[in-house]
């Protein structure tokens, strides 16, 4: 694992700008949802936590990464393009005429495993793949990135219960805990905390980290293939929805909204400032 954090921080700045640009150009996309999980994705892909082959996306030995929160697709597309799964020019056509992909995740994009957008599905599919891997005696890992708002779906807990009972220790869930849902903060809507206790009581090993700290992300994933535990692992990553663009943070109104006019300029300026400051 490459622990040169400045390299990842630079990549994080670069890809944040790409995400904002592609969504502004398309006039659509979940900017803030993408920015809360982008550092996790960079750690997984650029940090080579995942085994993958950009030249052979279907390689049978690859780790399976399931973006269960399909609205974060701009982040995954930007990362996959950056590491060579497809031409970066595709990002410029995001959700536009002749573009190959839109707002929610599509399974036919190279490097993408599932179609997602409806929540609470991808996590269960990931568990199914993990179970299949065990049955087939294959040693790849399965990672599922799920949103905290997604955890309101009952199917998430059906899968959580099943996965620990069936000792799917080849399954890692990462929760993008950005505290915001569509209309309000999660703790105002229906309380998710104490979140770690919920997962523990469902039989999972639990870690809680800062989802924007590469040190903490990498540390939580260290030795991920040689864990002694029989339990699946959940990493609750505390994040900020819109991280990097102060003007779009801490306000539910920015869910699925792309800044225009003055707000666009403000967002770009905020991101530039953040990039210079970090």
């Amino acid at each position, binding site marked *: 694992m490459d622990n040169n954090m400045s390299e990842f921080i630079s990549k994080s700045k670069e890809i944040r700008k790409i995400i904002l640009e592609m969504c502004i150009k398309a006039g659509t996309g979940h900017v803030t949802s993408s920015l809360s999980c982008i550092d996790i994705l960079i750690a997984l892909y650029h940090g080579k936590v995942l085994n993958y082959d950009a030249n052979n996306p279907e390689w049978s030995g690859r780790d399976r990464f399931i973006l269960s929160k399909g609205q974060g697709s701009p982040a995954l597309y930007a990362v996959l393009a950056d590491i060579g799964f497809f031409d970066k020019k595709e990002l410029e056509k995001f959700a536009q005429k002749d573009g190959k992909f839109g707002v929610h995740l599509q*399974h036919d994009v190279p490097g993408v*495993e*599932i*179609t997602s957008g*409806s929540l*609470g*599905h991808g*996590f*269960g*599919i*990931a*568990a*199914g*793949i*993990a*179970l*299949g*891997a065990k*049955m*087939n005696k*294959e040693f790849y890992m399965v990672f599922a990135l799920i949103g905290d708002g997604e955890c309101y779906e*009952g*199917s998430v807990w*059906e*899968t959580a*219960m*099943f996965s620990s009972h*069936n000792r799917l220790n080849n399954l890692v869930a990462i929760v993008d805990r950005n505290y915001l849902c569509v209309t309000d903060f999660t703790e105002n809507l229906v309380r998710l905390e104490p979140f770690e206790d919920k997962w523990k009581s469902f039989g999972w090993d639990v870690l809680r980290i800062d989802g924007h700290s590469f040190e903490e992300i990498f540390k939580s994933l260290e030795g991920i293939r040689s864990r002694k535990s029989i339990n699946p692992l959940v990493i609750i990553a505390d994040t900020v929805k819109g991280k990097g663009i102060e003007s779009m943070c801490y306000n539910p109104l920015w869910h699925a909204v792309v800044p225009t006019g003055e707000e666009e300029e403000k967002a770009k300026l905020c991101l530039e400032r953040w990039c210079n400051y970090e």
Partner: protein
Amino acid sequence: MNSISQRDAFWNKVYEMAKEDRNVVVITADMGAPSLDKFKKDLSSQFVNVGIAEQNAINLAAGLSLTGKKVFTYAIAPFITLRCLEQIRVQNAIMEIPITIVGVGAGFGYPDSGPTHHILEDIAILRAMPNIIINNITDSIMASAFGEISYNAKKTNYIRLDRQLIPDIYTRKHDFTKGLAILKEGKDFYLIATGSMTHTALSIADKLAAKKIQVGVIDVYTFPIKEELFLNTIKGAKKLISLEEHFLPGGLGSSVCEILNDHKILIPVKRIGLPTDKGYEYCYKYGGREVIREYYGIDDMSIERKVMEFLK
């Protein structure tokens, strides 16, 4: 009366194939069957019970299918179709991940259990989605054949099993990939039926024959209906009657009318099934399947009367 249920005939066939192919996996949402007890005992590594969690069953099935497994999910029909409908829509219809969905209790198959356990809308609902094949099983010979057809299927297919013991009417020689069959030759008039209603159609055709009214019987067991074969089969018919133990909107009768209309075949069609204006009220009537059918006007006598009036 047949001694083996559609359910056991189906699972016995799947068991035979699972013994030869370790990639066959059964996921049950805590639904059992004597035939599945054997499967669980002999092939425990290929048997998964997820508890009463149908959404998870479909999601897991999709994941397992992506790893090369041939997955069969199983529960009472309304739960393994409608409780997890959106999972089926995304994983199986949109992503086209193939699995077999097995539901038991077609129509009023659990007559004493009330409407939660009846399934009267699934053909219409699943027929509305591309990439899902519905197989409404008529007898246990067909059920066994569909065990093998499902194993070889490249698309998601829904096996709709009757819960009650129903006599066999097919022979093992029948090619069940055809999707429909003429069970009784007709000329001017045909009864087009599906599932348990096919048995009713045969009995009514016999009664009408005794009254010198010749009516053919066609069993439609696969949806979408195979149009070309259907049109060839009813060629020259002057009137058609559809029979189904299912609400009328979107069911067999609707399918028939759509095909006829699309091909500009303007012959009268009488749809006999469950009218929606009575809602689920009669699903709370007890005393057996025939009692509920009588309330909804789809018992043998009511159907015979409606057919006679229509053919006048």
